[in-house]
């Protein structure tokens, strides 16, 4: 069968055609919203119109049949309207209140999980991992599944002092930009790349490779028409591998997981913050990563027990002090948490005022 005529540079469809009528009518004229349950909220417009949102969990990696099921549900209760969120949940948009409870009942019957709104844990932003990425040091989807199973009550019902945003990056490229999350998991490499010298000259550009190294650990190896790495300078970022495939950095027994905490992106109360390193290494243990999951759950529980209402993880830690964070959590403080790279000047303590 002949293919239809292709068109270039048309851009995405105009979003207006996908908006439910209640949104078109009240666009930019919403008055307030209320969180009714961790899975539902209602937005009220200046006109008095109401829009109910039911938020449903998604593993992000979904089959077309699941999208079709989302569509069927939307057709039944939402005149075919639905949206996805930046954290990859699905949202059903209900403009007829009488359809709200039947929708929720149907979702429960089909096994969909509602939650993620307000002061709890929403879906975990994550990268591709072994499912689809060449530089993954671990699997992101598996880590997310393992953590959300354990933290599920915070998605569905249990509340925290504020929302808690989790993220997973399967290597330090952090293509999901996880570096401003309340708690983030980052997969790390810990050994210098092994170089397939025979392939270097065909696959890599010498100046690009040398220039890719932030610590200037790479120099030419003229005898082999390749490069060599100074092991004392390499800090395993893998940027050379990104520009030169023969410099493989993956290592099944030495790749691991680091945990960073205390980041946020909003300006509410305090300025946006980066997440900071508190656990430098946990072994990569698929399929369930038990120690990573236990560490994250422990940090969540210590935060829940100690933070004041409305404090995000980073705000709580800044109020009590990082030394108190380490003593409250019992996490070992190691040299890895002391910056010896670009943020050293900003992060070392310059005052004798601290706690024991």
């Amino acid at each position: 069968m002949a293919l239809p005529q292709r068109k270039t540079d048309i851009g995405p469809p105009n979003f207006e055609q996908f908006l439910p009528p209640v949104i078109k009518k009240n666009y930019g004229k919403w008055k307030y919203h209320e969180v009714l349950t961790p899975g539902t909220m209602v937005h009220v417009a200046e006109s008095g119109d109401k829009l109910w949102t039911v938020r449903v969990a998604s593993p992000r990696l979904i089959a077309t049949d699941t999208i079709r099921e989302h569509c069927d549900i939307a057709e039944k209760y939402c005149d075919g309207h639905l949206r996805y969120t930046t954290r990859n949940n699905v949202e059903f948009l209900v403009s007829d209140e009488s359809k709200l409870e039947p929708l929720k009942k149907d979702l429960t019957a089909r096994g969909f999980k509602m939650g993620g709104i307000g002061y709890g844990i929403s879906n975990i932003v994550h990268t591709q991992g072994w499912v689809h990425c060449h530089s993954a040091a671990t699997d992101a989807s598996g880590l997310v599944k393992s953590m959300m199973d354990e933290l599920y009550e915070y998605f569905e019902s249990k509340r925290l002092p504020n929302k808690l945003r989790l993220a997973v990056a399967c290597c330090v490229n952090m293509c999901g930009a996880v570096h401003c999350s309340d708690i983030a998991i980052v997969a790390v490499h810990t050994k210098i790349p092994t170089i397939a010298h025979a392939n270097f000259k065909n696959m890599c550009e010498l100046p690009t490779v040398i220039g890719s190294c932030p610590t200037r650990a790479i120099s030419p190896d003229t005898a082999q028409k390749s490069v060599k790495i100074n092991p004392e300078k390499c800090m395993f970022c893998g940027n050379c591998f990104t520009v030169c495939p023969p410099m493989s950095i993956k290592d099944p027994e030495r790749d691991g997981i680091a945990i960073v905490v205390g980041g946020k992106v909003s300006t509410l109360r305090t300025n946006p913050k980066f997440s900071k390193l508190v656990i430098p290494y946990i072994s990569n243990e698929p399929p369930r990563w038990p120690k990573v999951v236990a560490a994250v759950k422990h940090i969540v529980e210590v935060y829940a027990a100690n933070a004041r209402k409305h404090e995000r993880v980073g705000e709580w830690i800044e109020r009590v002090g990082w030394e108190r964070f380490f003593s409250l959590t019992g996490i070992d403080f190691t040299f890895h948490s002391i910056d010896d790279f670009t943020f050293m000047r900003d992060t070392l303590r310059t005052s004798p005022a601290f706690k024991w």
Partner: protein
Amino acid sequence: MKKYNTPLIDDLEKGPWPSFVTEMKKAAKNNEMANDALGHLEKCYSTKVGYWKHGGIVGVLGYGGGVIGRYSELGEEFPGVAHFHTVRLNQPSGFFYTSKALKEICDIWDKYGSGLTNMHGSTGDVVLLGCRTESLEAVFAEYSSRGWDLGSSGSALRTPSCCVGPARCEWANYDTLGLNYALTQEFQDEMHRPSFSYKFKFKLSGCACDCVASLARSDMSIIGTWKGNIVIDQAEVKNYAKNGMDINAEIVNMCPTQCISYDGKEMKIDNAECNRCMHCIAKMTKALKPSGEKGATICIGSKAPIVVGSLLSWVIVPFIKLEPPYTELKDLIRKIWDWWDENAKPRERIGEVIEMKGMRSFLEYIGVPPMPQQIKEPRKDPFMFYTEDDIASFKTKEAEEKKTGKYKF
């Protein structure tokens, strides 16, 4: 179809959270590629390494991006993933869909690809995972003839994305969806034909809650703000108190500028001292509302840590009005890209180039004056550049002072 034994990833079908493995199995029922992707993933779990090769140069005619080449090292063992390219489909602003449109996307994808998707990728696109090279032109013809275009990849303007904005949020200070659509349409060439030093991302948030994390992960963060007063509905304040809110502890004492007071009856805000952080508004949305001029703050330069450390975006334009056709913003964007193009080395993000060349050089080129809103604090060291013009203008000012007898600092 080959049946793989997958005990490790089968374990990830247990537990309350929806399982991506169950999704892969669902697709694998009628799809050889998805089936081999399952076997391939089980192998990764058993050996603890990945087998995907670096991307290759694949794509559709006339485009330099939108498709990410993906091949497995284990193509013979798992032929269904020998080619497993990603197609990025540009999402509609705010991720709104109708079931009709989504089903159409699914039908085409089932015909040519693995039936596996990400709704959505981190940048915002609909990510279609797993397609063979020879299917790409057909995929593109099917989608584009029905009004869907590819997103972006490589050293290009990446697919812009935005928060839900005025479609369903009372805090949006500008039309994030409208501007997102306008910028995406304006810069199609910059998206589809990579000509930059490296990637460049726009993310659009309607207020400082920043639901798309623009300040942390976009070269240009466009964050809604306002210039007028916060309007207070005192009756609603009373309701919050009645319903159990401790207004002094939760609102007054948590205000970063201490510009709110509450005597148990009435709330007052010293609006001139408010820094518009959004805390009180977000917690008392029925009682407090921004008013007056609406617009956005433009910040520049954020990125993840690769390679010399992560950056948050820096404020460059404290306030800009954003109304169609957005000419002022589009002109500013073009000037910013000009400067970046002139000064960047390959694979340098704009934030890194500003660090190298200095904020002054950047701001002067794009024609933005220095303002205290751009900094957290002034410089600490006394080593600075004085141009001949700088000195001349200091001298002119002093000559003026001698005439008037009055100092102007």
